[in-house]
């Protein structure tokens, strides 16, 4: 739902890990949900509160 706020800049994909096995292997997905930010510049494992996801996005975007 993050993408809705700025679709010009944000792309949000739900990825079914088994169908896209190559991508899952690339990012070493072992548990779900696992959120990969900008090609692993950031990452959040598990379901976390919105504020934690926001913090990780900010960290990844400032790299």
């Amino acid at each position, binding site marked *: 739902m*993050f993408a809705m706020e700025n679709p010009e800049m*944000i*792309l949000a*994909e739900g990825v*079914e890990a*088994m169908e*896209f096995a190559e991508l899952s292997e690339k990012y070493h997905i072992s548990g779900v949900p696992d959120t990969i930010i900008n090609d692993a510049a950031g990452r959040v494992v598990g379901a976390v509160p919105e504020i934690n996801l926001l913090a990780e996005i900010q960290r990844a*975007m400032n790299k």
Partner: protein
Amino acid sequence: MEKLLPPDIIKQIREVFAQVKNPVALLFFSSKKNCDYCAEIQQLLEELTQLSDLLHLSIHDIDAEADLAALYKVTGKAPALVIAAQEGDQITDFGIRYLGIPSGHEFTTLIQDIILVSGRDSGLSAQTRQYLKSLTKPLHLQVYVTPT
């Protein structure tokens, strides 16, 4: 063809779809190559979108309609579903995609996504909204999930 959605599930979905506020466009990109479940997903989406007058499904071939696939950034990502807003003939992309088979728990997520997009509101906090709106560089989020 036999229905994928059983009658009791159809009844539940109809009840939940009472919350659909505005038209939603579902663009399904299938492929004739390496997509074992594309036919089933298409059938599932056809059955699902029949349950609300506000849902509009269109079916596209990711290879034959390469320009459209590129526009929606789903090139090489079949089976891909774009969940977008629709006003008349106009589709507004919210950047929301689901890649793969929306079964099990992910079927519930799909229905929730449809309702959120129909409300045109992310439901996020003011702080998050402000930050996301201020972005000037691309942000790509991929949430990996499994059906169970």
